[in-house]
């Protein structure tokens, strides 16, 4: 006895069988069972659940919506009511916090990268203001000073790093590139967080772009080294 093909049985999930097909199904337990399985399969497909996107998807989407002008800037709300800090808006605080977080991370990364490749260096991060310090102040002038201090530490760390690289003879940096890549990843994440909170800030955008470019350069060097080692 010739059985019905899977393609034919798949059709019979939606369409009535011909007389010949009906007759075969009545006599053949195997084909009847296959048809039943296909019907179960189709029902199961129609009941597949929704899938929650991975964490961080909204943040990435929000950044793109803002970049394309599809979302207005965050509304301005005072974080304290009345008093001398009435003009100290939430938006401005977020921008300052984002800046401090980025600079603090950047300074730490600069120091870590220099240490990993070029020998010991002082702990720059210890001198960098933190977001916690910023949160403790409600005075705009004091907050601005903290941001500027963090910025100086960040730039100082990068300058020091570059000087050390130059002393070692160009772009080739000793040490573990994976460590540098991981450190730069922290900087990129801090930069992305900063830019998502202050998307119109050209300085933060520039720093993020620089961090991404540096990270990609490290990745290319790692890939090249891996290829030479016969990893791929």
């Amino acid at each position, binding site marked *: 006895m010739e059985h019905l093909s899977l393609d034919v*049985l798949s059709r019979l999930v939606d369409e009535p069988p011909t007389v010949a097909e009906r007759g075969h199904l009545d006599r053949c337990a195997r084909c009847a069972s296959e048809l039943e399985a296909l019907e179960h399969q189709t029902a199961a497909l129609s009941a597949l659940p929704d*899938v929650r*996107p991975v964490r961080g998807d*909204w943040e990435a989407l*929000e950044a793109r919506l803002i970049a394309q002008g599809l*979302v207005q800037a965050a509304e301005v709300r005072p974080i304290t009511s009345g008093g001398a800090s009435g003009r100290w808006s939430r938006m401005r605080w977020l921008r300052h916090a984002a800046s401090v977080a980025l600079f603090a991370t950047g300074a730490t990364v600069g120091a870590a990268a220099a240490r990993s490749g070029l020998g010991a260096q002082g702990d720059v991060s210890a001198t960098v203001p933190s977001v916690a310090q910023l949160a403790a102040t409600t005075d705009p002038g004091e907050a601005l000073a903290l941001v500027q201090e963090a910025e100086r530490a960040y730039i100082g760390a990068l300058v020091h790093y570059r000087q050390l690289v130059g002393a070692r003879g160009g772009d080739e940096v000793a040490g573990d590139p994976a460590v540098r890549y991981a450190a730069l990843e922290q900087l990129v994440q801090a930069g992305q967080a900063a830019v998502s909170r202050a998307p119109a800030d050209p300085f933060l955008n520039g720093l993020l772009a620089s961090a991404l470019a540096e990270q990609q350069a490290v990745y290319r060097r790692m890939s090249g080294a891996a290829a030479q080692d016969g990893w791929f």
Partner: protein
Amino acid sequence: MSEADLIRRACEGDGPAIRALYERYAPRVYAVVRRIAGDDELARDYAQEAWIRAVRALPTFRGESRFSTWLHRIAVNAALQAARKAESRQRHERISVEEVPVAPAHGDALLQQRLEGALDRLPEGMRQVLILHDVEGYTHDEIGEVLGVTAGTSKSQLFKARAKIRALLRSLADHPRSAGETGARAWSI
């Protein structure tokens, strides 16, 4: 806040309103684009593209259909268009049916995992038709419209896709990987 209010505010670029709509519908959008993409990495790109298109098109939403239906159609179109544009599919973490983790307790969860894995293994054309018809409930005429094929081609691809999925799942039934899996309901379909 009602959905109509959220949509009206989202039209004006209100971030919290857009996020509220995203929170409500992201799983639905992600599910369909993930299945069309057949790949997690691509799915994230497709989902973002779908949402950007939807937010941009919000002022054209007239309420003639349900918002979820309107959004779903945008997501499907965005994913299909992106899939067509892709020169070659990048499968970064392709999960084969054999490698799908076994859910310890619930038969339906295991079946769903195996179906999702099997979907990823279908050729692209078959997968798109099967997803649109059997998962999303499109008619063959609607599939023909969005894929640019005839309804007959859609039917033909659907029957082949069902048969292929059935064969993939049956091969697992013939070669269970552990004794604990043999009793699972997934094998019986």
